C-alpha cells in the first residue's frame, strides 16, 4: 500500500442551483454567481458541472477527456474503440481567454459500452467506472473530467470567469449547475485537479480539508478504489459511489454516514432509529468525513448540499420559485437571485436534498 503521497490541500468557494421542474437555465447564471466569489479562490482552479446539457445524447455516456498530448489521446481512443460504441467524437468548444495558460487537448465522446464487453456479473455502470479508473491511473497524460449521461464537467486552471468564458458556458442550458473556485495551498495548477470531481453522473464540488483523509483513503482502498488524485473531493466521490451505488443506501442515509449525528443525539433517538444510526456509524465509521467541509453533489436525479458535523465551513441555501440555490456565501446567491422567497443556513450535518420532480 502506498503511503508516501503528498496530499492536495485547498480552500474554496462553491455554488449550485437546481430547477426541480427541469426548466433549462443558461450557464451564465452560475458563472455570474461564482465570479462574485473570486476572492475565495486564487486563480489556480475553477470549474462547473452541468446536467441536462446533452438532451440529444441523453442515453449515452458523455466522456469529457483531457489530454496532455496526441499520444495519450491515441491510447485512450484505441481503448474506447475496442470497448465502446462511439456515437460522436468532438473537441469541446472553447474560446481564447486572455490570461489563461496553455490549455490541454479537450475532447468529448458520446458512447455506450459494447454489449459483449460487459460480461458476467458486471453492470454497465461498473464497466464505465473501470474504464475511468483505468484511464486515470494507467494512461499517462490522459484524464477523465466526467463520464455521466446527459451531464458534463468543465474545468481548468483559472478563475471562475475565465473558465466560464473559455468553455462558452453561457451557450449551454441545463437544469442543475454547480460551480467551484479553488485556493490550493501546495499544488501547481493542473487542469485535472480542479473541481468538480465526477464519477458516472456524480459530480462533487467541495470546500474544505478533510482531516480524516488518511483513514478515508485506506477505507476506500479496501473496496478496490484507487485514489490517484490525492484530493479530499476524490474521497467524497468514491465514498458516495460506494454507499449509494454499491451498498444501496439512499441519499439521506449516505449523508448521515458522511456527517453522522453525535452519539449523545443517537442515544436519545427512539429504538428503531437508534439502531439504524448506530449501525451506520459502526459500519461506516472509517468513511466519516471529519474536519471542515461544505460540499454539493449533483446527480442525475437532483442536487444535495451538506456540511460537516459542526459546520466548520459555510453553506447558505435559498429558494425562489422552482429553483433552489446553495452557495458558500449568501451574496453569491443574491447576485443572481436578488429576492429569494426563503434564505437559510443549513444546520451542521443536516443535508439540503433537492430532487427533480419530473
Amino acid at each position, binding site marked *: 500500500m502506498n*503511503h*508516501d503521497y503528498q496530499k492536495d490541500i485547498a480552500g474554496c468557494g462553491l455554488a449550485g442551483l437546481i430547477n426541480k421542474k427541469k426548466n433549462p437555465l443558461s450557464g451564465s447564471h452560475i458563472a455570474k454567481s461564482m465570479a462574485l466569489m473570486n476572492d475565495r479562490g486564487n486563480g489556480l482552479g475553477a470549474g462547473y458541472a452541468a446536467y441536462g446539457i446533452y438532451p440529444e445524447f441523453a442515453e449515452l455516456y458523455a466522456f469529457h477527456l483531457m489530454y496532455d498530448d496526441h499520444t495519450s489521446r491515441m491510447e485512450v481512443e484505441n481503448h474506447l474503440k475496442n470497448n465502446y460504441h462511439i456515437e460522436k467524437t468532438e473537441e469541446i468548444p472553447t474560446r481564447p481567454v486572455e490570461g489563461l495558460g496553455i490549455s490541454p487537448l479537450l475532447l468529448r465522446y458520446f458512447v455506450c459500452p459494447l454489449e459483449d464487453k460487459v460480461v458476467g456479473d458486471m453492470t454497465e455502470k461498473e464497466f464505465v467506472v473501470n474504464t475511468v479508473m483505468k484511464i486515470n491511473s494507467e494512461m499517462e497524460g490522459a484524464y477523465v473530467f466526467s463520464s455521466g449521461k446527459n451531464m458534463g464537467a468543465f474545468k481548468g486552471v483559472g478563475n471562475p470567469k475565465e473558465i466560464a468564458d473559455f468553455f462558452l458556458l453561457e451557450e449551454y442550458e441545463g437544469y442543475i449547475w454547480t460551480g467551484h473556485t479553488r485556493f490550493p495551498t501546495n499544488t501547481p495548477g493542473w487542469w485535472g485537479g480542479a473541481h468538480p470531481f465526477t464519477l458516472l453522473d456524480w459530480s462533487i464540488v467541495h470546500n474544505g480539508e478533510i482531516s480524516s483523509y*488518511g483513514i478515508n483513503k485506506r477505507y476506500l482502498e479496501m473496496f478496490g478504489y484507487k485514489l490517484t488524485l490525492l484530493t479530499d473531493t476524490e474521497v467524497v466521490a468514491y465514498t458516495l459511489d460506494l454507499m449509494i451505488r454499491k451498498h444501496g443506501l439512499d441519499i439521506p442515509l449516505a449523508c448521515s454516514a458522511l456527517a453522522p449525528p*453525535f452519539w449523545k443525539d443517537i442515544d436519545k433517538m427512539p429504538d428503531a432509529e437508534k*439502531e439504524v444510526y*448506530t*449501525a451506520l456509524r459502526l*459500519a461506516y465509521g472509517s468513511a466519516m468525513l*471529519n474536519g471542515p467541509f461544505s460540499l454539493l453533489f449533483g446527480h442525475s436525479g437532483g442536487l444535495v448540499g451538506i456540511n460537516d458535523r*459542526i459546520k466548520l465551513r459555510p453553506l447558505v441555501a435559498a429558494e425562489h420559485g422552482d429553483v433552489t440555490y446553495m452557495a458558500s456565501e449568501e451574496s453569491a446567491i443574491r447576485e443572481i437571485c436578488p429576492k429569494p422567497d426563503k434564505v437559510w443556513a443549513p444546520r451542521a450535518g443536516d443535508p439540503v436534498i433537492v430532487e427533480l420532480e419530473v
Partner: protein
Amino acid sequence: MFKSLALPEYLATIDKEKCIRCKRCIQNCGWSVYSWGGDRVQIDTQKCVKCLRCYHYCPEEAIDILNNETRYKDNANWGFSHIRNIKRQAETGGMPLTGMGSDLPYTILFDHLLLDACQVTNPSIDPLREPMELRTYLGKKPAKIAIERDKNEKPSLKTKLGPQIKLDVPFIFSPMSFGSISLNAQKVLAYAAKENGIVMNTGEGGLHEDLFPYTDNIIVQVASGRFGVNPQYLNAGVAVEIKIGQGAKPGIGGHLPGEKIPLQVAKTRMIPVGSDALSPAPQHDIYSIEDLRQLIYALKEATGYKPISVKIATVHNVAAIVSGIVRAGADIVYLDGFRGGTGAAPNVIRDHMGIPIEYAVAAVDDRLRQEGIRNEASIIAAGGIRSCADAAKAIALGADAVGLGTTALITMGCTTCGKCYTGNCSWGITSQRPELTARLDPEVFGERLSNLIKAWSHELQEILGALGVNSVESLRGSRERLRGIGLDEQTLDILGVKPVGR
C-alpha cells in the same frame, strides 16, 4: 547456605540519625529486607528489589534505596545482567524468572512517531467547547448494511449486527488473573472499568464471586489451563477471550507457583490449595487454525453468541496469523506486544521473543485491509502502552482500542520492580499474602485508576481536537496523521507512515 556471588542490585540504606526505630520498614517490606536487631534495624540488601514501599512509608524519610555502584568490571560485551544471571544460574541450576515487560533497550517506535496538528487550512477543534467522541464498539462490523424505509419514510435496520462491546473510551484493562494479582487488585480494575464504561479481563484465573456485581464490565478468559472454566463462568461476562499467548512469553504457558495459591485462589481456579498452577504451553485442543475455529464456535454456542476475542503474542508472522484468526470467526483480536507485562516469565523468553506492538498493529491492519476483512474483527493493541500518546499512536496505526496492564498496576503503587512472581509484592498487588493484599484498598485505588482513565481520556480528546477531528474513529488507522522521526525507509514502509518533513 553459601553467600550468593550475584551482586545485589540495590543498596537499602537507613540514616541512623533520622531513624526512630519505629519498625515500619520491617512491617512494610514484603521481601524481609529489614529485621530487628535488638537496638536497630538490620538490612539484608541482597533481597531488596527497589519497590520503594519502605521509602514511602518511613515517617522520618530515613530510608534511601541506592543503585549498587559496585559493578563488575566495565565490559561492552559482558553486561551486568549477563554476568549476574550466569552466576545465579550456576548457583541454582534454574531459569531466572522475571515479572513485567522486557526492560532491555530495544527501539521503542512510539518514541519515533509524531502526531500531526491543524494550522490554518483546517481548524482545530476545542474539546472543552465542542463534542469530542471517544466511544468505541468492539466486535464484528458489517461491510455494508441494509436499511429499509416504511411508508412514513422511517428507516429500520435489516442487517443483523453482530454482538458488540460498548466502550465509552478506547481503553481496556489487560487480562491479569486472580492468582497472579490479588483479588483486591482485580477489584480495583473492576471498579475503574465500571466507573469509566470500559472492561477488565479476568485473565486465566477464573472469576471470584466478589466480582459478580461487575460482570457487565468483565471479559472472561479461557486459557490453556482452563482454570475456573465452567458454563456459568463463560456466560458471566460480556465476552469470552481465548488466550493463545502473551507478549512477554510467547509460546510458553503460565506459571503460578503454589505459594500464590491460597484457598480463595484455589477455589476460583478449581484446583487444590498450594498446587502449582501451570498452564500448558499450547492449548491442547488447538494444534492448528481449524481447531481454533472449532473452539471459537464452541464458545459462541456455549454463550449464546457473545463476542469471542482471541489473544495472541505478536510474533514474526503475526499478520498472517491474525488473518487466519479473523477468518476462523474471532470478533476481537487482542495483540500483546513484545514489551507486554507478565506476572512470571523466564528472562530468556521475555527478552528475546516476539516483536513490538507498533510493528504488529501496522502489519496486521495492513494485511486485514488488503484482504478486505478489516471490518470483521476489532483490534486491541497492548504490550507497551505507557501514555495516552502511545495509545493515540497505536490507534492511528490501526488499533480499535488499547489494553493497559502495567499502567493500571502503576496506579496501585507498582514501580515495575519486576518481582511479581515471588508473591511478595509489598504493595499487595501481585501477592496473595493477606497481610500484604490488605494494603490495597479497592475503592481508594479504584478511584486512582479511574482518575488515570479520565486523565487519558481528556488527553486523547485534546489530541483529536488538535488533529481537527471530533471522533476517535477518524483517528483509527489514519496513518497520514503520523510521521516517523529517525526511522529507516523500510521501517517507515512497514508502519505505513511518511518521514517527518514529508
